[in-house]
């Protein structure tokens, strides 16, 4: 999945770069003069259209408080769009169909261009958004159908079909845009806004369209929530229970189509996929429950739409689609770093906790074994309340751990009341002794298991047991007990000599501070 994603992404970057080279510098010159004027007029309506300078505080306030009617329209549209895309996206992400949306959006371009040409030819209002979007939908669906057909009829993998169709359709679209610019009646201005997204060209009717489509998507997701959940989790089971799996898949795809088509104008067909993937992927870092993921994803999408469109309104030279995606990405980075369920910080903290508890277990077992040994040599004197104290040097001999690490572990164990520490001598407390006995027992049960079932030599068994005992769960311990027929809580003798010669220490144990 990751590989496929990277491949298609780089493909998309290539195409985007190609378009930038072909369209932008040449395109501006090739456009009829009135097209440029059209741009100017439109962007004049947005409040900061005249300069790319830093906005004044008054402008800033006007945008943030949504006083300007046009800004309000645009922001409302992109917010709703982001919300719907986030919600639909959480299902497509889990269905592992995320890139289908990308293929779909790229495939819309030839449809838009063709619709424009035909509409001009027949004298319809060439700029009629409705006609253009019909064209976009039609060619988007043809593109998706082509991917499915290629996958089914040939033995090519789906990612291959996806990449091929995506680039062919997009290339065709770019070629048709070139044709349009050659046309005498061409008023191609505004068509590029479908590629990169340009909220400045959005009118009230467009926002109404977005609002309608977004509402349909959100309502459909809520109504079909549990059906889509089942589809994404286990389609075989869904099929066995009589759910029409193919039709459910189609429904999900239809929702993607709707979001994508109405989002073309605001976000652009290259970047639309970001709104379908990134909010859902970000939301996953915050929760382990689909319901919450769905809502968080919608929220992140809405926030991206809102903040992105406002930034774009403040800095007229910054295209809205890019701004929305950048805000979205910022939220993704924050989620990845600080997400409360599986963000990096949580995982690093867990890892550190694990390391600490492993060190703790090593310390307690070392103390237990030292005590065991000394009570052996001194005769049956064990199990008194007073536990013997041992020097740090003895402990350092037991394992190959650094002094610093050992001291740190001892300090933490003392803070938890497991050991007493007095002038370089360490002693188990009563609580520590109980814990140490439990750990040693686990360790030796596991050693015995390895020796009797996995036939590992006694001289190697300590290391192998060491690596695994920290993950032993109660149910595995129970199974070990029943296997080794040791129901009583006694601690078995160590199956190998406790003190090993220094050269048998494995290098992996050394220097782990």
């Amino acid at each position, binding site marked *: 999945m990751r590989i496929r994603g990277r491949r298609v992404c780089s493909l998309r970057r290539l195409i985007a770069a190609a378009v930038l080279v072909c369209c932008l510098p040449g395109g501006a010159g090739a456009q009829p003069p009135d097209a440029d004027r059209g741009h100017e007029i439109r962007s004049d309506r947005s409040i900061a259209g005249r300069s790319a300078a830093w906005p004044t505080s008054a402008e800033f306030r006007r945008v943030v408080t949504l006083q300007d009617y046009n800004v309000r329209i645009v922001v409302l549209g992109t917010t709703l769009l982001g919300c719907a895309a986030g919600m639909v996206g959480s299902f497509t992400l*889990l269905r592992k169909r995320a890139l289908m949306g990308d293929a779909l959006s790229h495939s819309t371009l030839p449809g838009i261009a063709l619709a424009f040409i035909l509409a001009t030819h027949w004298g319809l209002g060439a700029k009629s958004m409705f006609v253009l979007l019909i064209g976009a939908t039609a060619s988007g669906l043809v593109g998706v159908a082509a991917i499915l057909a290629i996958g089914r009829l040939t*033995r090519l993998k789906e990612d291959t079909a996806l990449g091929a169709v995506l680039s062919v359709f997009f290339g065709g679209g770019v070629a048709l845009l070139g044709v349009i610019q050659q046309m005498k009646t061409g008023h191609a201005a505004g068509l590029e806004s479908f590629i990169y997204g340009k909220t400045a060209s959005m009118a009230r009717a467009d926002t109404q369209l977005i609002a309608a489509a977004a509402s349909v998507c959100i309502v459909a997701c809520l*109504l*079909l929530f*549990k*059906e889509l*959940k*089942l589809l*994404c*989790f*286990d389609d*075989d*089971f869904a*099929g*066995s*229970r*009589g*759910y029409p799996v193919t039709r459910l898949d189609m429904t999900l795809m239809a929702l993607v189509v709707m979001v994508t088509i109405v989002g073309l104008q605001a976000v652009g067909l290259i970047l639309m996929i970001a709104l379908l993937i990134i909010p859902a992927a970000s939301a*996953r870092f915050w*929760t*382990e*429950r*689909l319901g919450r*993921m769905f809502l968080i994803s919608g929220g992140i999408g809405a926030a991206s739409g809102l903040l992105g469109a406002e930034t774009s309104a403040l800095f007229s030279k910054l295209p809205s689609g890019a701004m929305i995606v950048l805000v979205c990405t910022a939220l993704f980075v924050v989620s990845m770093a600080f997400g409360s369920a599986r963000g990096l910080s949580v995982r690093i903290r867990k890892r550190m906790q694990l390391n600490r508890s492993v060190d703790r277990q090593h310390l307690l077992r070392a103390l237990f074994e030292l005590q065991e040994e000394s009570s052996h040599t001194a005769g049956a004197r064990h199990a008194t309340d007073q536990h013997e104290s041992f020097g740090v040097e003895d402990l350092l001999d037991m394992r190959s751990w650094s002094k610093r690490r050992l001291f740190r572990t001892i300090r933490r164990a003392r803070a938890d009341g497991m050991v007493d520490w007095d002038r370089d001598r360490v002693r188990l407390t009563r609580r520590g002794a109980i814990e140490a006995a439990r750990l040693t027992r686990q360790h030796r049960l596991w050693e015995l298991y390895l020796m009797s079932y996995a036939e590992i030599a006694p001289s190697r068994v300590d290391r192998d047991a060491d690596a695994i005992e920290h993950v032993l*769960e109660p*149910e*595995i311990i*129970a*199974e070990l007990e*029943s296997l080794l027929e040791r129901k009583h809580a006694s601690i078995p003798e160590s199956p190998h000599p406790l003190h090993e010669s220094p050269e048998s220490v494995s290098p992996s144990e050394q220097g782990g501070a």
Partner: protein
Amino acid sequence: MANESTPPSAASSPAPPAAAPNGGRTGNGTVPLSVYDLTVAYDRKPVVWDVGFDVPPGSLVGIVGPNGAGKSTLLKAVMDLIPRASGRVEVFGESYRRNRDRVGYVPQRESVDWDFPVDALDVVTMGLYREIGWCRPVRKKHRQMAMDALHRVGIADLASRQISQLSGGQQQRTFLARALVQDADLYLMDEPFAAVDAATERAIVELLNEMKQRGKTAVVIHHDLQTVPEYFDHVVLLNMRIVAHGPVSETFTPENLQKTYGGRLTLLEEVSAAMRRQEGSL
């Protein structure tokens, strides 16, 4: 190689009479599952050839065979999850479609992504979605039913744990609970014993026996030959076609096992390889 045109029936001729498809006999409402002449092909490569057998009511039936023998395919074809090339399936004397609610399915554990953002209770509740109905929310009553099912498989305390945090055995128990919550009459289970701990294995066996006592039937794909006589009454020995089926005491013999696992079905494999080659050259 020279015999690529040999019809499949010739290749399966070593099958004992027990494997003969149960011809024109029509099923009746008491037989949980009857399979007639079932053939399934993936990409025109046949996986299950001409399979026919009856499952007696109230029995525990093990389906046994080597990897790639078409065991999972057989179950999926029974439930219309994959198209059948030919053949017929009856569930309690009618089509699967009509008696779907009397069948509980336990898919292979590996068939889903356990990283999915749901907890164990959610997964079990999925067994009730059909009963709850389209577009309706899951209610407290349904969650309670799911909880009861989790109790029955002994992991009620893990109900709110995200499913990737469950051990393999616990995941398998979750899947079982999802089928149990339906209260079906026929259970189809795909390798429920695969890679589970001993405690889970015992729990599943107990459940199967309890089901049997309540008159339920289970068809279970199984991989551990040693435990077949202990766990099952009937056995279906499958290797693309049926090698033998019937009561364990009569059918589960070294000769039949040899036929199932030892004798490679060279002709069948050659034919399907030839078909694939032909496909590739087109």
